[in-house]
């Protein structure tokens, strides 16, 4: 590897690491997921500064061209990251499903409770529940109003 290539690769990696850190600083990515990028960036940086490590590794594993080892490791790393993302995606999907389902169930509750309040209000002489009161108070007073009306 020529000195120019070394510097070129090192600059790209440094720029990338800087970008990752700035994303972290602005809390736009989660540390857990940034870690794998920082570590792999660090390894590539190390290899570009000391290309001898790569040549030695390639020779000891029996890979003819050191560059092929780079490709091989790069693909493996990519596969690992994509698989980890699939796992994360599945987990997130389950969470979104549950949130959507529970939201719909709560909305159904709310609709029914609102209707009950409204009908109770009508029985008690059209008293609309005041907007300032909390939901719990409204439910209590509405059911009180309803029972009063029933007693009458």
């Amino acid at each position, binding site marked *: 590897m020529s000195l120019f290539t070394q510097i070129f690769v090192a600059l790209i990696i440094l720029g990338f690491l800087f970008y990752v850190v700035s994303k972290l600083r602005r809390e736009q990515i989660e540390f857990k997921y940034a870690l794998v990028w920082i570590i792999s960036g660090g390894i590539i940086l190390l290899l570009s500064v000391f290309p001898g490590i790569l040549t030695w590794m390639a020779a000891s594993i029996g890979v003819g061209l050191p560059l092929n080892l780079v490709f091989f490791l790069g693909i493996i790393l990519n596969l690992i990251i994509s698989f980890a993302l699939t796992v994360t995606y599945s987990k997130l*999907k389950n969470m*979104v*499903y549950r949130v*959507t*389902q*529970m*939201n*719909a*169930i709560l*909305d*159904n509750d709310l609709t029914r409770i609102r209707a009950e309040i409204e009908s109770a209000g009508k029985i008690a002489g059209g008293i609309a529940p005041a907007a300032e009161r909390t939901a719990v108070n409204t439910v209590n007073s509405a059911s009180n109003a309803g029972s009063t009306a029933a007693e009458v």
Partner: protein
Amino acid sequence: MKKLLIIPAYNEADNLVELVAEIRQKAPGYDYIIVNDGSKDNTAQVCSDNKLNVLHLGNNLGIGGAVQAGYLYAIRHNYDIAVQIDGDGQHDPAYLDVLIQPIVDGLADFTIGSRFIERVGFQSSGLRRAGILWLDAILKRSTGLDITDATSGFRACDQAVMHVFASYYPKDYPEPETIADLYRHKFRIREIPVVMRERQIGVSSIRFFRPIYYMMKVTLSIFVSRLKRHKK
């Protein structure tokens, strides 16, 4: 005994009012919950105009997520029996009592309405029949159960099964896999002969699927279900 009908509905605005009227007439002892799975038609409007009991899912979750929402609702409101029934009018509410009877009698935990036991009524088209036969055979191979209508969406269950469905329910093409799941949990499964109708208005979602993906996914999922850890 509190009984709930779970009606998953995606773009079924034209069928729902009629279906609910039919339920009130033929099966007055049952409550129902429509699960509006992010329909793009005026399902939401129809539901609110007619004051139908409905869960509006903000995202389109697909049949699995929609039905699971129904089971969550059933658990929250403490129903003893939940029955899944299609929103397109395929399933006749007149068969509900027959379907849940084994559960009421304590003879089964889960029942499936099958159109292929007595072979009366709408029998589905040739290719689809072949697919169902294949899945029946896979289930037989994997669990030993003699299921004739593995993809039937007309199914009833007790509370224990509801809890299993609430914690895990396959997201797409769920029916055959859930049978294998319930077998693994050692629930008693029984098929009941019913007569099904051709869907009334609208297009079955089954028309759109890529049959190859469907068959592979469901076949593999049945075998994977056997590999899962036993939980009960």
